[in-house]
């Protein structure tokens, strides 16, 4: 170790608070004074120094998420709000349509054993008159059969003109062997009570 190296080492040791008694006295005094000055300056800096606390860490997390470098918490990743909105919309549509239907009501809207299209109407006779007028104008000759419970069944050939007319009435019947069957039914007494 050269004299200069030794001098450096002794001065730096004194700066670190471990002065060598054998070292140059002036050097030790200077290093000790500098140590006190550095400590005072450190205290001054610490007074204004921001703290690396949880709040600052949260800001960092936010920035990392914003830059796509960190995933948001799981609960934020789930499409909870979208799901909730969809469920709410679905529920409101069901309510507008008259609520949930029981199993016994399920086949009253569409289909059935004879694969007829069932239309729930308040006054089947009045609706029959309207439909017959339209169907006859379309060239059809419907067979009308009155059934129990106030139901009226219409059966006719499923010609394009007939289907066009029914479509204009927002009725899309099922064609079975070229035939169209419609049943006009009043709402059940149970349904009316609701």
């Amino acid at each position: 170790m050269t004299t200069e190296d030794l001098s450096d080492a002794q001065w730096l040791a004194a700066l670190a608070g471990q002065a060598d008694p054998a070292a140059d006295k002036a050097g030790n005094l200077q290093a000790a004074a500098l140590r006190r000055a550095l400590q005072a300056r450190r205290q001054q800096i610490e007074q204004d120094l921001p703290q690396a606390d949880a709040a600052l860490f949260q800001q960092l997390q936010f920035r990392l998420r914003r830059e796509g470098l960190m995933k948001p918490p799981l609960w934020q990743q789930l499409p909870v709000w979208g799901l909730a909105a969809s469920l709410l919309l679905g529920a409101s549509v069901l309510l507008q349509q008259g609520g949930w239907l029981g199993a016994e009501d399920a086949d009253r809207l569409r289909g059935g054993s004879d694969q007829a299209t069932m239309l729930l109407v308040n006054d089947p006779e009045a609706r029959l008159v309207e439909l017959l007028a339209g169907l006859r104008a379309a060239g059809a000759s419907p067979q009308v059969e009155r059934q129990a419970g106030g139901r009226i069944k219409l059966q006719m050939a499923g010609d394009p003109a007939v289907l066009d007319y029914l479509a204009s009435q927002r009725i899309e019947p099922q064609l079975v062997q070229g035939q169209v069957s419609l049943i006009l039914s009043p709402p059940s007494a149970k349904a009316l009570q609701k």
Partner: protein
Amino acid sequence: MDEEEIIKCICIGGRSRDAAVKTLYYDQAQTMLRFFASQGASADEARDILQNTMVKIVRSAASFNGDGAAKAWLWQIARNCLLDFHQQNSRMSRREVTVIPEKWAELVETTAAPQVCSAAMDIDACVAAGLATFSAAMPERAFVLGLQMDGLSIDAIGQQIGRSIAATKEYLSQCRKKIQPFIAHCVDLLSN
């Protein structure tokens, strides 16, 4: 979790990354804030530079190839972010000039003492005044002298300033020389 493991976990992503970022933050953030403040950054600026540093570490963790100390790599990013910040704010100035060693003695002789010291001024006040001027002129060197004052090993100081052990020894020696024009005259007060 040491620095190398932290970088590996950041590369893995997901929860490992979250945990690694948290560990890194609570291990290094306060020291980095102190470093930025000691280099002249205000409290708000130090927060911004810290955030930039952390983001850059996460973004470039994959580029760490394992050569050299991970801690030195982290601090290299911190120093670069500080430099970028100063450059962006047009406040960057090359405060330190390269001095040819042979010319150093001449510079010491021709550099006037930055503070007028009277006999009434005690050595502590004189050195504190000299240190304040030195810190403003060469903040990184003042910071390194602070690390030495803390009793850090040469290796630990080297990791923070991105130098090898030998280069750090030389840097500390240079720091001693460079502060002399600012405080050497203070010792004379002892004889008064």
